[in-house]
Protein backbone atom coordinates (compact mmCIF):
# COMPACT_ATOMS: atom_id res chain seq x y z
CA UNK A 1 0.00 0.00 0.00
CA UNK A 2 1.46 3.30 -1.04
CA UNK A 3 1.67 6.26 1.31
CA UNK A 4 -0.46 9.36 0.90
CA UNK A 5 1.36 12.41 -0.42
CA UNK A 6 0.68 16.06 0.35
CA UNK A 7 1.81 19.47 -0.85
CA UNK A 8 3.54 21.01 2.17
CA UNK A 9 5.25 24.05 0.68
CA UNK A 10 4.42 26.52 -2.08
CA UNK A 11 6.69 29.12 -3.67
CA UNK A 12 5.89 31.46 -6.54
CA UNK A 13 8.05 34.37 -7.70
CA UNK A 14 6.65 37.56 -9.17
CA UNK A 15 5.46 36.85 -12.72
CA UNK A 16 6.47 39.36 -15.34
CA UNK A 17 7.56 39.91 -18.93
CA UNK A 18 11.21 40.86 -18.61
CA UNK A 19 13.92 38.18 -18.70
CA UNK A 20 15.90 40.03 -16.06
CA UNK A 21 17.39 36.96 -14.34
CA UNK A 22 19.45 33.97 -15.40
CA UNK A 23 16.86 31.39 -16.38
CA UNK A 24 17.67 29.11 -13.46
CA UNK A 25 17.50 31.91 -10.89
CA UNK A 26 13.71 31.58 -11.22
CA UNK A 27 13.95 28.02 -9.88
CA UNK A 28 16.29 29.17 -7.11
CA UNK A 29 14.03 31.99 -5.99
CA UNK A 30 10.92 29.76 -6.09
CA UNK A 31 12.70 26.92 -4.26
CA UNK A 32 13.78 29.31 -1.47
CA UNK A 33 10.22 30.59 -1.16
CA UNK A 34 8.78 27.06 -1.01
CA UNK A 35 11.32 25.94 1.60
CA UNK A 36 10.56 29.00 3.72
CA UNK A 37 6.85 28.35 3.36
CA UNK A 38 7.36 24.78 4.62
CA UNK A 39 9.81 25.84 7.33
CA UNK A 40 12.47 23.55 5.86
CA UNK A 41 15.96 23.97 4.53
CA UNK A 42 17.79 22.28 1.67
CA UNK A 43 19.06 19.50 3.88
CA UNK A 44 15.51 18.35 4.64
CA UNK A 45 14.80 17.55 1.00
CA UNK A 46 15.43 13.97 -0.18
CA UNK A 47 14.67 14.17 -3.89
CA UNK A 48 14.47 17.00 -6.43
CA UNK A 49 12.79 17.12 -9.83
CA UNK A 50 13.13 20.18 -12.02
CA UNK A 51 11.56 20.95 -15.36
CA UNK A 52 11.76 23.26 -18.29
CA UNK A 53 11.70 23.54 -22.01
CA UNK A 54 15.21 23.86 -23.34
CA UNK A 55 14.72 25.93 -26.45
CA UNK A 56 13.01 28.79 -24.60
CA UNK A 57 15.96 28.81 -22.21
CA UNK A 58 18.32 29.15 -25.16
CA UNK A 59 20.41 26.09 -24.31
CA UNK A 60 20.16 22.31 -24.45
CA UNK A 61 19.89 20.72 -22.00
CA UNK A 62 18.69 23.37 -19.58
CA UNK A 63 19.08 21.05 -16.60
CA UNK A 64 22.73 22.15 -16.57
CA UNK A 65 21.70 24.58 -13.85
CA UNK A 66 18.15 23.87 -12.70
CA UNK A 67 18.92 20.99 -10.34
CA UNK A 68 21.45 23.02 -8.36
CA UNK A 69 19.00 25.94 -8.34
CA UNK A 70 16.41 23.72 -6.72
CA UNK A 71 18.76 22.53 -4.01
CA UNK A 72 19.64 19.22 -5.65
CA UNK A 73 23.41 19.20 -5.00
CA UNK A 74 24.45 15.51 -4.71
CA UNK A 75 20.86 14.47 -4.07
CA UNK A 76 18.60 12.04 -5.89
CA UNK A 77 17.58 14.47 -8.61
CA UNK A 78 16.30 14.56 -12.16
CA UNK A 79 14.99 17.04 -14.73
CA UNK A 80 12.08 16.60 -17.11
CA UNK A 81 11.81 18.37 -20.44
CA UNK A 82 8.09 18.78 -19.90
CA UNK A 83 5.85 21.11 -17.98
CA UNK A 84 6.55 21.18 -14.25
CA UNK A 85 3.25 19.41 -13.62
CA UNK A 86 5.08 16.25 -14.75
CA UNK A 87 7.88 16.99 -12.27
CA UNK A 88 5.08 16.96 -9.69
CA UNK A 89 3.80 13.64 -11.04
CA UNK A 90 7.23 12.00 -10.90
CA UNK A 91 7.93 13.35 -7.41
CA UNK A 92 4.55 12.02 -6.32
CA UNK A 93 5.55 8.55 -7.56
CA UNK A 94 8.87 8.67 -5.69
CA UNK A 95 7.10 9.48 -2.41
CA UNK A 96 4.10 7.20 -2.94
CA UNK A 97 6.51 4.32 -3.54
CA UNK A 98 8.02 4.96 -0.14
CA UNK A 99 11.49 5.67 -1.50
CA UNK A 100 11.69 9.20 -0.08
CA UNK A 101 9.86 11.42 2.40
CA UNK A 102 10.33 14.97 1.09
CA UNK A 103 10.50 16.10 -2.54
CA UNK A 104 11.00 19.50 -4.13
CA UNK A 105 9.72 20.18 -7.65
CA UNK A 106 10.34 23.34 -9.61
CA UNK A 107 9.75 24.90 -12.97
CA UNK A 108 10.28 28.21 -14.66
CA UNK A 109 9.22 30.27 -17.61
CA UNK A 110 11.74 32.28 -19.51
CA UNK A 111 11.97 34.37 -22.64
CA UNK A 112 15.31 34.31 -24.42
CA UNK A 113 13.47 33.81 -27.70
CA UNK A 114 9.88 34.01 -28.90
CA UNK A 115 8.08 30.75 -28.15
CA UNK A 116 6.50 30.80 -31.60
CA UNK A 117 9.90 30.95 -33.25
CA UNK A 118 11.42 28.12 -31.26
CA UNK A 119 8.26 26.03 -31.30
CA UNK A 120 8.52 25.48 -35.04
CA UNK A 121 11.72 23.48 -34.56
CA UNK A 122 9.96 20.88 -32.42
CA UNK A 123 7.66 19.98 -35.29
CA UNK A 124 8.33 17.01 -37.51
CA UNK A 125 10.81 18.16 -40.17
CA UNK A 126 9.60 15.76 -42.88
CA UNK A 127 5.84 16.28 -43.07
CA UNK A 128 4.81 19.48 -41.29
CA UNK A 129 7.63 21.86 -40.44
CA UNK A 130 8.10 22.88 -44.11
CA UNK A 131 4.43 23.97 -44.16
CA UNK A 132 4.84 26.58 -41.41
CA UNK A 133 3.48 24.52 -38.50
CA UNK A 134 3.99 26.02 -35.04
CA UNK A 135 2.58 25.86 -31.53
CA UNK A 136 -0.14 28.46 -32.17
CA UNK A 137 -0.91 27.15 -35.66
CA UNK A 138 -1.57 23.67 -34.28
CA UNK A 139 -3.72 25.07 -31.46
CA UNK A 140 -5.63 27.16 -34.00
CA UNK A 141 -6.38 24.08 -36.13
CA UNK A 142 -7.89 22.48 -33.04
CA UNK A 143 -9.82 25.64 -32.16
CA UNK A 144 -11.27 25.94 -35.66
CA UNK A 145 -12.36 22.29 -35.69
CA UNK A 146 -14.00 22.79 -32.28
CA UNK A 147 -15.92 26.01 -32.96
CA UNK A 148 -17.08 24.89 -36.38
CA UNK A 149 -17.93 21.41 -35.15
CA UNK A 150 -20.21 22.73 -32.41
CA UNK A 151 -21.22 26.13 -33.80
CA UNK A 152 -19.54 28.10 -31.00
CA UNK A 153 -19.71 31.86 -31.56
CA UNK A 154 -16.93 34.45 -31.27
CA UNK A 155 -18.91 36.10 -28.47
CA UNK A 156 -19.02 32.87 -26.48
CA UNK A 157 -15.27 32.40 -26.72
CA UNK A 158 -14.65 36.04 -25.78
CA UNK A 159 -16.37 35.40 -22.45
CA UNK A 160 -13.50 33.10 -21.42
CA UNK A 161 -11.03 35.92 -21.93
CA UNK A 162 -13.23 38.45 -20.11
CA UNK A 163 -13.62 36.09 -17.13
CA UNK A 164 -9.96 35.16 -16.84
CA UNK A 165 -8.61 38.66 -17.38
CA UNK A 166 -11.07 39.96 -14.76
CA UNK A 167 -9.83 37.29 -12.35
CA UNK A 168 -6.21 38.08 -13.17
CA UNK A 169 -6.81 41.76 -12.45
CA UNK A 170 -7.60 40.75 -8.84
CA UNK A 171 -4.53 38.52 -8.53
CA UNK A 172 -1.46 40.39 -7.28
CA UNK A 173 0.74 37.51 -8.55
CA UNK A 174 -0.55 37.56 -12.12
CA UNK A 175 1.58 38.79 -15.01
CA UNK A 176 -1.30 40.55 -16.83
CA UNK A 177 -3.43 42.43 -14.32
CA UNK A 178 -5.92 44.29 -16.46
CA UNK A 179 -9.49 43.42 -17.35
CA UNK A 180 -10.62 43.46 -20.98
CA UNK A 181 -14.06 43.74 -22.57
CA UNK A 182 -15.63 41.36 -25.05
CA UNK A 183 -15.48 44.14 -27.64
CA UNK A 184 -11.71 44.42 -27.14
CA UNK A 185 -11.32 40.66 -27.56
CA UNK A 186 -13.36 40.64 -30.77
CA UNK A 187 -11.44 43.63 -32.15
CA UNK A 188 -7.98 42.33 -31.25
CA UNK A 189 -5.61 41.46 -34.09
CA UNK A 190 -6.05 38.14 -35.88
CA UNK A 191 -3.07 35.88 -35.11
CA UNK A 192 -4.00 32.45 -36.48
CA UNK A 193 -7.70 32.25 -37.30
CA UNK A 194 -9.75 31.73 -35.17
CA UNK A 195 -7.20 32.89 -32.59
CA UNK A 196 -7.02 36.62 -32.00
CA UNK A 197 -4.34 38.29 -29.93
CA UNK A 198 -6.44 38.37 -26.76
CA UNK A 199 -7.33 34.66 -27.10
CA UNK A 200 -3.62 33.87 -26.72
CA UNK A 201 -1.48 33.87 -23.55
CA UNK A 202 1.50 36.12 -22.84
CA UNK A 203 5.01 34.70 -22.51
CA UNK A 204 5.77 35.14 -18.82
CA UNK A 205 8.94 34.94 -16.80
CA UNK A 206 9.23 33.58 -13.28
CA UNK A 207 9.49 30.43 -11.19
CA UNK A 208 7.28 28.11 -9.18
CA UNK A 209 8.20 25.36 -6.71
CA UNK A 210 6.25 22.93 -4.57
CA UNK A 211 7.44 20.74 -1.71
CA UNK A 212 5.74 17.38 -1.32
CA UNK A 213 5.80 15.17 1.75
CA UNK A 214 4.88 11.61 2.55
CA UNK A 215 2.00 11.34 5.01
CA UNK A 216 4.27 11.10 8.01
CA UNK A 217 6.50 13.94 6.85
CA UNK A 218 3.52 16.10 5.91
CA UNK A 219 1.98 15.78 9.37
CA UNK A 220 5.33 16.74 10.90
CA UNK A 221 5.96 19.70 8.59
CA UNK A 222 2.63 21.50 8.34
CA UNK A 223 -0.75 21.97 9.93
CA UNK A 224 -2.21 22.63 6.47
CA UNK A 225 -1.31 19.68 4.26
CA UNK A 226 -2.95 19.61 0.83
CA UNK A 227 -3.38 15.96 -0.11
CA UNK A 228 -2.98 14.61 -3.62
CA UNK A 229 -6.02 12.34 -3.76
CA UNK A 230 -5.92 11.65 -7.48
CA UNK A 231 -3.46 12.02 -10.33
CA UNK A 232 -3.39 10.86 -13.93
CA UNK A 233 -1.71 11.68 -17.19
CA UNK A 234 -2.05 10.65 -20.81
CA UNK A 235 -0.67 11.42 -24.25
CA UNK A 236 -2.44 11.43 -27.62
CA UNK A 237 -1.09 10.85 -31.12
CA UNK A 238 1.42 13.40 -32.38
CA UNK A 239 -0.24 13.34 -35.79
CA UNK A 240 -2.97 15.96 -35.88
CA UNK A 241 -4.68 14.16 -38.75
CA UNK A 242 -5.08 10.98 -36.69
CA UNK A 243 -7.10 12.36 -33.80
CA UNK A 244 -10.44 14.01 -33.19
CA UNK A 245 -9.51 17.69 -33.28
CA UNK A 246 -12.81 18.77 -31.69
CA UNK A 247 -11.93 17.29 -28.30
CA UNK A 248 -8.99 17.00 -25.91
CA UNK A 249 -8.61 13.23 -25.86
CA UNK A 250 -5.50 13.09 -23.70
CA UNK A 251 -7.08 15.38 -21.10
CA UNK A 252 -10.20 13.21 -20.95
CA UNK A 253 -8.05 10.11 -20.41
CA UNK A 254 -5.92 11.82 -17.74
CA UNK A 255 -9.02 13.11 -15.93
CA UNK A 256 -10.65 9.69 -15.98
CA UNK A 257 -7.62 8.23 -14.15
CA UNK A 258 -7.43 11.05 -11.60
CA UNK A 259 -11.18 10.93 -10.95
CA UNK A 260 -11.17 7.15 -10.49
CA UNK A 261 -8.28 7.38 -8.03
CA UNK A 262 -9.96 10.05 -5.94
CA UNK A 263 -13.47 8.59 -6.16
CA UNK A 264 -14.97 11.38 -8.25
CA UNK A 265 -18.00 10.37 -10.27
CA UNK A 266 -19.66 13.78 -10.71
CA UNK A 267 -16.89 16.37 -10.97
CA UNK A 268 -19.19 19.38 -11.23
CA UNK A 269 -20.70 18.43 -7.85
CA UNK A 270 -17.59 17.08 -6.17
CA UNK A 271 -15.01 19.71 -7.14
CA UNK A 272 -15.03 23.16 -5.50
CA UNK A 273 -12.40 25.00 -7.57
CA UNK A 274 -10.37 24.24 -10.67
CA UNK A 275 -7.34 25.64 -12.45
CA UNK A 276 -7.09 24.52 -16.08
CA UNK A 277 -4.37 25.07 -18.68
CA UNK A 278 -6.13 27.67 -20.85
CA UNK A 279 -3.36 27.82 -23.43
CA UNK A 280 -5.98 29.60 -25.56
CA UNK A 281 -9.49 30.76 -24.66
CA UNK A 282 -10.86 28.00 -26.91
CA UNK A 283 -8.93 25.38 -24.95
CA UNK A 284 -10.57 26.38 -21.67
CA UNK A 285 -13.93 25.53 -23.22
CA UNK A 286 -12.60 22.26 -24.63
CA UNK A 287 -11.14 21.47 -21.20
CA UNK A 288 -14.57 21.78 -19.52
CA UNK A 289 -15.80 19.02 -21.82
CA UNK A 290 -12.75 16.77 -21.44
CA UNK A 291 -13.05 17.15 -17.65
CA UNK A 292 -16.72 16.07 -17.87
CA UNK A 293 -17.94 19.39 -16.46
CA UNK A 294 -20.11 19.84 -19.55
CA UNK A 295 -21.28 17.59 -22.38
CA UNK A 296 -19.35 17.79 -25.66
CA UNK A 297 -20.26 21.10 -27.27
CA UNK A 298 -21.83 22.32 -24.00
CA UNK A 299 -18.93 24.24 -22.45
CA UNK A 300 -19.99 27.68 -23.65
CA UNK A 301 -23.33 27.24 -21.93
CA UNK A 302 -21.66 26.34 -18.63
CA UNK A 303 -19.63 29.53 -18.94
CA UNK A 304 -22.66 31.66 -19.87
CA UNK A 305 -24.53 30.38 -16.83
CA UNK A 306 -21.74 31.75 -14.64
CA UNK A 307 -20.90 28.33 -13.25
CA UNK A 308 -17.16 28.87 -13.67
CA UNK A 309 -17.05 32.51 -12.51
CA UNK A 310 -15.14 33.19 -9.30
CA UNK A 311 -18.45 33.36 -7.43
CA UNK A 312 -19.94 30.44 -9.36
CA UNK A 313 -20.58 26.83 -8.43
CA UNK A 314 -17.17 25.69 -9.73
CA UNK A 315 -14.78 28.62 -10.21
CA UNK A 316 -12.30 27.89 -12.99
CA UNK A 317 -9.07 29.87 -13.21
CA UNK A 318 -9.86 32.23 -10.38
CA UNK A 319 -6.16 33.12 -10.62
CA UNK A 320 -6.65 34.44 -14.14
CA UNK A 321 -5.21 31.26 -15.62
CA UNK A 322 -2.63 30.93 -18.33
CA UNK A 323 -4.22 33.80 -20.27
CA UNK A 324 -2.82 36.08 -17.54
CA UNK A 325 0.36 34.22 -16.54
CA UNK A 326 2.04 31.82 -18.92
CA UNK A 327 5.32 30.19 -17.94
CA UNK A 328 6.15 28.04 -20.98
CA UNK A 329 7.33 24.89 -19.25
CA UNK A 330 5.71 25.52 -15.87
CA UNK A 331 2.21 26.92 -16.48
CA UNK A 332 0.75 23.57 -15.41
CA UNK A 333 2.73 23.55 -12.17
CA UNK A 334 1.41 27.06 -11.46
CA UNK A 335 -2.10 25.60 -11.75
CA UNK A 336 -1.25 23.11 -8.98
CA UNK A 337 0.28 25.86 -6.82
CA UNK A 338 -2.81 28.04 -7.23
CA UNK A 339 -5.17 25.14 -6.46
CA UNK A 340 -3.19 24.32 -3.31
CA UNK A 341 -3.28 27.97 -2.17
CA UNK A 342 -7.05 27.94 -2.59
CA UNK A 343 -7.38 24.86 -0.37
CA UNK A 344 -5.17 26.48 2.29
CA UNK A 345 -7.42 29.54 2.16
CA UNK A 346 -4.38 31.66 1.30
CA UNK A 347 -5.31 32.88 -2.16
CA UNK A 348 -5.89 36.46 -1.02
CA UNK A 349 -8.19 38.55 -3.21
CA UNK A 350 -8.70 35.60 -5.59
CA UNK A 351 -9.81 33.23 -2.81
CA UNK A 352 -13.03 31.34 -3.46
CA UNK A 353 -15.41 30.39 -0.65
CA UNK A 354 -14.13 27.53 1.53
CA UNK A 355 -13.09 24.97 -1.10
CA UNK A 356 -12.41 21.40 0.03
CA UNK A 357 -11.49 19.71 -3.24
CA UNK A 358 -9.60 21.27 -6.14
CA UNK A 359 -8.48 20.22 -9.59
CA UNK A 360 -5.31 21.31 -11.36
CA UNK A 361 -4.72 20.60 -15.04
CA UNK A 362 -1.46 21.06 -16.89
CA UNK A 363 -0.56 20.41 -20.49
CA UNK A 364 2.57 18.42 -19.92
CA UNK A 365 4.32 18.93 -23.25
CA UNK A 366 4.68 22.70 -23.43
CA UNK A 367 5.64 22.58 -27.07
CA UNK A 368 3.36 19.73 -28.04
CA UNK A 369 1.35 19.80 -31.19
CA UNK A 370 -2.22 20.88 -30.43
CA UNK A 371 -2.58 20.05 -26.76
CA UNK A 372 -1.59 16.41 -26.98
CA UNK A 373 -0.48 15.54 -23.46
CA UNK A 374 -2.07 16.37 -20.16
CA UNK A 375 -1.81 15.76 -16.42
CA UNK A 376 -4.68 16.15 -13.95
CA UNK A 377 -4.19 16.41 -10.20
CA UNK A 378 -7.00 16.32 -7.63
CA UNK A 379 -6.12 18.01 -4.33
CA UNK A 380 -7.93 17.97 -1.01
CA UNK A 381 -7.54 20.13 2.05
CA UNK A 382 -6.54 18.64 5.37
Amino acid sequence: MSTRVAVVGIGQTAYRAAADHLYHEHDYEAARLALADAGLDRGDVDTVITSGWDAVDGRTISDMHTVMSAGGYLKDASHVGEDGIMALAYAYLRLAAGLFDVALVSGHGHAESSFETVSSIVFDPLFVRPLGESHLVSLALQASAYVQGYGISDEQVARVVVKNRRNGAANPSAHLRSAVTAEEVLASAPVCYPLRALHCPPQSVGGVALILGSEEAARRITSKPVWISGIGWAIDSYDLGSKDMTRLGSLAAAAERAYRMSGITDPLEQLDVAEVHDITAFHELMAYEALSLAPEGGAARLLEEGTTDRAGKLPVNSSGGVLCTNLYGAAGLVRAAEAALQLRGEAGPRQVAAPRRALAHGMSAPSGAAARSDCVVVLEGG
Partner: protein
Amino acid sequence: MTQEEEIIVIPGRWDLPFRHTAGRVASRFFHGLKAKRILALRCPRCQRVLMPPRPFCERCFQPLDDWVEVGQQGTLEAFTICYARFTGLPDPPYCLILVKLDGADSALQHLLGEVALEDVQSATQRIQIGMRLEALWREEREGGIKDIKYFRPVA
Protein backbone atom coordinates in the same frame (compact mmCIF):
# COMPACT_ATOMS: atom_id res chain seq x y z
CA MET B 1 26.32 46.59 -5.22
CA THR B 2 25.19 50.05 -4.26
CA GLN B 3 23.27 50.93 -7.39
CA GLU B 4 21.25 49.09 -10.01
CA GLU B 5 23.46 48.09 -12.89
CA GLU B 6 22.19 47.54 -16.40
CA ILE B 7 21.42 43.86 -17.19
CA ILE B 8 23.72 42.76 -20.02
CA VAL B 9 22.07 40.83 -22.88
CA ILE B 10 24.29 38.85 -25.25
CA PRO B 11 22.68 38.06 -28.63
CA GLY B 12 22.74 34.45 -29.79
CA ARG B 13 21.58 32.47 -32.79
CA TRP B 14 21.14 28.78 -33.54
CA ASP B 15 21.91 27.85 -37.13
CA LEU B 16 22.65 24.14 -37.13
CA PRO B 17 22.76 21.87 -40.18
CA PHE B 18 20.83 18.59 -39.96
CA ARG B 19 20.31 15.63 -42.28
CA HIS B 20 16.76 14.45 -41.60
CA THR B 21 16.47 10.78 -42.59
CA ALA B 22 13.10 9.94 -44.11
CA GLY B 23 13.57 6.19 -43.60
CA ARG B 24 11.92 3.43 -45.58
CA VAL B 25 8.29 4.52 -45.21
CA ALA B 26 8.50 8.28 -45.72
CA SER B 27 11.00 7.78 -48.56
CA ARG B 28 8.47 5.66 -50.47
CA PHE B 29 5.80 8.30 -49.80
CA PHE B 30 8.05 11.06 -51.12
CA HIS B 31 9.11 9.01 -54.17
CA GLY B 32 5.39 8.62 -54.80
CA LEU B 33 4.85 12.37 -54.67
CA LYS B 34 7.59 12.85 -57.27
CA ALA B 35 5.53 10.58 -59.54
CA LYS B 36 2.29 12.48 -58.66
CA ARG B 37 0.95 9.56 -56.63
CA ILE B 38 -0.19 9.83 -52.99
CA LEU B 39 0.53 6.61 -51.10
CA ALA B 40 -0.70 5.49 -47.70
CA LEU B 41 -0.39 2.37 -45.54
CA ARG B 42 -3.29 0.18 -44.40
CA CYS B 43 -3.23 -1.39 -40.93
CA PRO B 44 -3.80 -5.15 -41.15
CA ARG B 45 -5.77 -5.13 -37.89
CA CYS B 46 -7.94 -1.98 -37.74
CA GLN B 47 -7.96 -1.59 -41.56
CA ARG B 48 -7.46 2.16 -41.29
CA VAL B 49 -5.59 3.69 -44.23
CA LEU B 50 -3.03 5.92 -42.52
CA MET B 51 -1.94 9.19 -44.06
CA PRO B 52 0.81 10.25 -43.94
CA PRO B 53 2.15 6.69 -43.95
CA ARG B 54 4.08 5.57 -40.89
CA PRO B 55 6.02 2.41 -39.95
CA PHE B 56 3.42 1.10 -37.49
CA CYS B 57 -0.16 1.64 -36.32
CA GLU B 58 0.04 3.35 -32.95
CA ARG B 59 -3.34 2.00 -31.86
CA CYS B 60 -2.92 -1.65 -32.92
CA PHE B 61 0.87 -1.64 -32.59
CA GLN B 62 1.14 -3.61 -35.82
CA PRO B 63 3.88 -3.09 -38.43
CA LEU B 64 2.51 -1.64 -41.68
CA ASP B 65 3.41 -2.86 -45.17
CA ASP B 66 0.15 -2.77 -47.17
CA TRP B 67 0.60 0.21 -49.50
CA VAL B 68 -2.45 1.75 -51.14
CA GLU B 69 -2.80 4.77 -53.39
CA VAL B 70 -5.33 7.33 -52.14
CA GLY B 71 -7.23 10.01 -54.04
CA GLN B 72 -5.88 13.43 -54.96
CA GLN B 73 -9.12 15.02 -53.83
CA GLY B 74 -10.40 15.15 -50.31
CA THR B 75 -12.46 16.93 -47.67
CA LEU B 76 -11.35 19.86 -45.50
CA GLU B 77 -11.35 18.84 -41.80
CA ALA B 78 -9.75 21.87 -40.13
CA PHE B 79 -7.92 25.04 -41.12
CA THR B 80 -6.21 28.09 -39.73
CA ILE B 81 -5.06 31.27 -41.44
CA CYS B 82 -1.87 32.65 -39.97
CA TYR B 83 -1.86 36.47 -40.01
CA ALA B 84 0.99 37.16 -37.60
CA ARG B 85 4.62 37.23 -38.68
CA PHE B 86 6.97 35.01 -36.71
CA THR B 87 10.70 34.59 -37.28
CA GLY B 88 11.36 31.35 -39.15
CA LEU B 89 7.76 30.88 -40.27
CA PRO B 90 6.35 31.68 -43.73
CA ASP B 91 5.24 35.17 -44.63
CA PRO B 92 1.61 35.74 -43.63
CA PRO B 93 -1.08 35.20 -44.55
CA TYR B 94 -0.97 31.45 -45.16
CA CYS B 95 -3.63 28.83 -44.62
CA LEU B 96 -2.66 25.54 -43.03
CA ILE B 97 -5.20 22.73 -43.38
CA LEU B 98 -6.06 19.18 -42.46
CA VAL B 99 -7.45 17.43 -45.54
CA LYS B 100 -8.81 13.87 -45.49
CA LEU B 101 -8.04 12.44 -48.92
CA ASP B 102 -10.53 10.07 -50.52
CA GLY B 103 -9.68 6.54 -49.42
CA ALA B 104 -7.65 7.61 -46.36
CA ASP B 105 -8.79 7.41 -42.73
CA SER B 106 -6.55 10.11 -41.31
CA ALA B 107 -5.98 13.64 -42.53
CA LEU B 108 -2.90 15.16 -44.13
CA GLN B 109 -1.57 18.55 -43.05
CA HIS B 110 -0.92 20.86 -45.97
CA LEU B 111 -1.54 24.34 -47.33
CA LEU B 112 -4.59 25.86 -49.01
CA GLY B 113 -4.09 27.97 -52.12
CA GLU B 114 -6.14 30.00 -54.61
CA VAL B 115 -8.32 31.59 -51.92
CA ALA B 116 -7.79 35.25 -51.03
CA LEU B 117 -6.73 35.32 -47.37
CA GLU B 118 -6.05 39.00 -46.67
CA ASP B 119 -9.50 39.69 -45.25
CA VAL B 120 -10.38 37.24 -42.48
CA GLN B 121 -14.10 37.82 -42.87
CA SER B 122 -14.35 36.99 -46.57
CA ALA B 123 -11.73 34.23 -46.34
CA THR B 124 -13.60 32.40 -43.61
CA GLN B 125 -16.85 32.70 -45.53
CA ARG B 126 -15.16 31.06 -48.50
CA ILE B 127 -13.30 28.34 -46.55
CA GLN B 128 -15.74 25.88 -45.00
CA ILE B 129 -14.96 22.68 -43.12
CA GLY B 130 -16.31 19.87 -45.29
CA MET B 131 -15.49 21.59 -48.60
CA ARG B 132 -13.87 19.56 -51.36
CA LEU B 133 -10.21 20.16 -52.21
CA GLU B 134 -7.76 18.87 -54.78
CA ALA B 135 -3.97 18.67 -54.91
CA LEU B 136 -2.01 20.96 -57.22
CA TRP B 137 1.43 19.58 -58.10
CA ARG B 138 4.66 21.50 -58.47
CA GLU B 139 6.33 21.29 -61.86
CA GLU B 140 9.73 20.62 -60.25
CA ARG B 141 9.34 17.84 -57.71
CA GLU B 142 12.19 16.87 -55.41
CA GLY B 143 10.70 14.17 -53.19
CA GLY B 144 9.26 16.12 -50.27
CA ILE B 145 5.97 17.24 -48.79
CA LYS B 146 6.04 20.43 -50.86
CA ASP B 147 5.98 18.45 -54.13
CA ILE B 148 2.28 19.15 -53.63
CA LYS B 149 2.25 22.93 -54.08
CA TYR B 150 -1.01 23.23 -52.18
CA PHE B 151 -4.62 22.08 -52.15
CA ARG B 152 -7.27 24.24 -53.80
CA PRO B 153 -11.06 24.20 -53.85
CA VAL B 154 -12.51 21.82 -56.44
CA ALA B 155 -14.02 24.03 -59.15
